[in-house]
């Protein structure tokens, strides 16, 4: 009897709550679109493209305002999101530092598996780039011998210790048995600029960051770290083709702070699904060498994050946190 009563009471409660719960949620104030990297980099370009598409297609009643929080390899952004727990008006464009930064900075107090997964927009790729002035470097072998010849004078630019490119740099150091000097810059765009200006010797930029310089003939890719050659770079061999077992991707997903309301999550998921399916986004994916087959979301994305996090723990253990942070 008590059981029935409780049931009835819960049903009544549900009935009362239902209209609120299922009412269409939509942002009531501008949405902060946090980018955990600097301006001009891949994450930044993507976030700003998405923000523009949201406005152009009038997908949100309130504007999305992109805010860069690149500090401490994304630590600033992660901490900010953690502090925004339960907030329905903040979402974040993430990259792999989403996994690596909390692993390397244990006292950050952030567990990304608690964040609210919204949608995986793309998997981004990496290539090894040098300035076209380097006539002596034409392929991976000549690159490796040039690096070995230069020793620590060889400067690799990246977006920060613990960022994905530093992980990839550490993986290359382990595979080719050389050591380089890794210099962090705020954002992939600045890294690209410093390669073109010969301030650094090589980078592992994403295609979108180097694309315009590549088209202008200022930089050249040597290797791509993908499973198969990308359509945008048909003449560049993959590391695997050359017998080097490095394959590394960058996730580009949108996530909310911990404890976002389910209605809000649903609204954002639909929003980003619409963006994902748009012609503009799919075109961008092709031109910038992104893999965008289907948008992962919800539990599937949560699983993906958990797996990726574990994979990065293993990766960092293998190459050593010191190799990544340069300590």
């Amino acid at each position, binding site marked *: 009897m008590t059981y029935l009563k409780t049931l009835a009471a819960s049903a009544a409660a549900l009935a009362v709550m239902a209209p609120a719960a299922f009412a269409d949620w939509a942002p009531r104030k501008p949405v902060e679109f946090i980018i955990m990297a600097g301006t*001009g980099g891949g994450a930044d370009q993507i976030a700003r493209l998405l923000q*523009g598409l949201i406005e152009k297609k009038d997908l949100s009643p309130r504007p999305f305002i992109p805010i860069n929080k690149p*500090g*401490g390899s994304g630590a600033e952004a992660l901490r900010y999101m953690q502090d925004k727990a339960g907030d329905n008006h903040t979402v974040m464009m993430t990259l792999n530092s989403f996994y690596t930064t909390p692993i390397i900075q244990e006292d950050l107090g952030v567990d990304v598996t608690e964040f609210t997964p919204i949608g995986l927009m793309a998997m981004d790729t990496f290539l090894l780039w040098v300035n076209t002035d380097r006539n002596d470097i034409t392929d991976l072998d000549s690159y490796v011998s040039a690096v070995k010849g230069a020793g620590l004078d060889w400067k690799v630019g990246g977006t920060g210790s613990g960022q994905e490119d530093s992980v990839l740099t550490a993986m290359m150091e382990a595979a080719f048995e050389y050591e380089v000097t890794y210099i962090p810059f705020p954002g992939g765009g600045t890294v690209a600029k410093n390669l073109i*200006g010969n301030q*650094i010797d090589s980078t592992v930029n994403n295609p979108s960051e180097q694309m315009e310089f590549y088209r202008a003939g200022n930089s050249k890719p040597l290797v791509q770290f993908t499973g198969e050659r990308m359509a945008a770079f048909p003449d560049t061999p993959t590391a695997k083709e050359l017998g080097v077992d490095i394959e590394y991707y960058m996730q580009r997903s949108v996530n909310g702070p911990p404890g976002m309301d389910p209605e809000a999550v649903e609204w954002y998921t639909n929003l980003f699904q619409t963006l994902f399916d748009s012609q503009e986004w799919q075109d961008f994916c092709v031109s910038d060498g992104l893999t965008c087959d289907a948008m992962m979301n919800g539990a599937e994305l949560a699983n993906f994050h958990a797996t990726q996090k574990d994979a990065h723990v293993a990766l960092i253990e293998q190459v050593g946190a010191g190799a990544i942070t340069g300590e």
Partner: protein
Amino acid sequence: METILVSLGAGLMQAFEPLNLFMIFAGCLAGLFVGCMPGLGSVNGVAILLPVTFLVPPTAAIIFLAALYYGAMYGGAISSITLGIPGASTAVATVFDGRPMAQQGKADKALMAAAIASFIGGTVSVILFTLFAPPLAAFALKFGPQEEFALMLLAFATFIGLGGDDIPKTVFSILLGLVMAAIGFDIISGQPRMIFFDMVEFQRGIGFLVLAIGIYGIGEMLWTLESTKGQVTMHKVQITWARMKANFAEVKKYINSTWLGSFLGFFVGTLPAAGATPASLMSYGLSKTFSKDPDSYGKGNVAGVAAPEAANNAASTGSMLPMITLGIPGSPTTAILLGGMIIWGLRPGPLLFTESPDFVWGLIGSMYVANVATVILNLAMIPIFIRVLAMPFTLLTPIIFVLCVLGVFATTDRMFDTWIMLILGVGGYLMRKLNYPVAPAVLAIVLGPLAERSLRQSLISSQGDVTTFVTRPISLTCVLLALALISYPLVQRALRRRQSQRRAA
């Protein structure tokens, strides 16, 4: 040269098309408004109004946003001068002399100087942009971390000129600013540092505007309350034609500072990562250092208004250069413009000039027109802005207080920052009472992170060898200039002392 003129002509024609001309005026007006609201800067304005631009063709769209950007640079000066609250971070240096001028009943002069200097700064830099965009882009690429640090060193050297006579107090103020700049995350390793009392809120650091609004808004308000006992109303200014004409005649008083600010601002603006705020502060410092009468700065010298205003407008044009030629924004606002360009189907980068000439030259043409539009709008509106000062101080004080609180909260969205702002405001007031200069602290919090990053990048790349700063030509030049700047006021002072001793003897 000829091709440039032909392209520019086409660009100007484009700017005079009715839609584009309308966009310029609308943008300038919107910019003036967001610029003069504390806490709302060009970044917010451009971000909020970006969607509006999807209704028009790309060229009209960027013209609107670029006009908004300039308008905001002008607008920032308005609240700096009339209320003493920097309307935007780029207008902080304008407070230094603009506020004292308003208190002396010369607000119209200050506003006029700001408008004219901005016009000159904007025009000089757009001319430089037109003529030298590609070579300047190539030059910007030569700027590695070493050069950036040397430039920051140069900026710090201007502090000596900023601090007045008391060098130990200036150094103290700089250090205070640097300590505040260091709060948050370590730039290179990403570890949190200087987290006072283990409060997680400190991880986000102390924003530059929090300090600037605190010191200048609240600190200044307390100071004025104390010195006037709330009795005095501001000097009312009657705008007459005769007075306007007299004000125009004063241009020669600040023309040198304006030129200095224009060139410096443009140059600093073109460097990615620097932007208009450091440019305006450096310009102020340099103008003071080279002035015949440095002691009058900070007490209402009109050149102290013109120098930073010329620089921040010049820098806003300058920061378009790396955006267009390299695809790397020179300021937060251009970062948003960059996003807009990607939507419009344009890919900023080295090929934009050749692939989308209509767009680039239309933008450049519009910059010329936008400068004229803003100066006209601004001069016409001076009588309206001045009315703010006719309010009794008992009314103005609470308004300033509310605007300060609102301005900080609007930018950072945190009550924590608002409290910090109030605490810093009281601190700034005490510093003033004890005769400590506060401007160096403001400069240090802006330049500190930039200097730290470039210093550490340089030392990592040279593997700890400090000679890296003097073995590269551009860096060496900057370092030498910095040394000259530091010694200049010292030498001058020593000379003056000797002269007066001689006279006494």
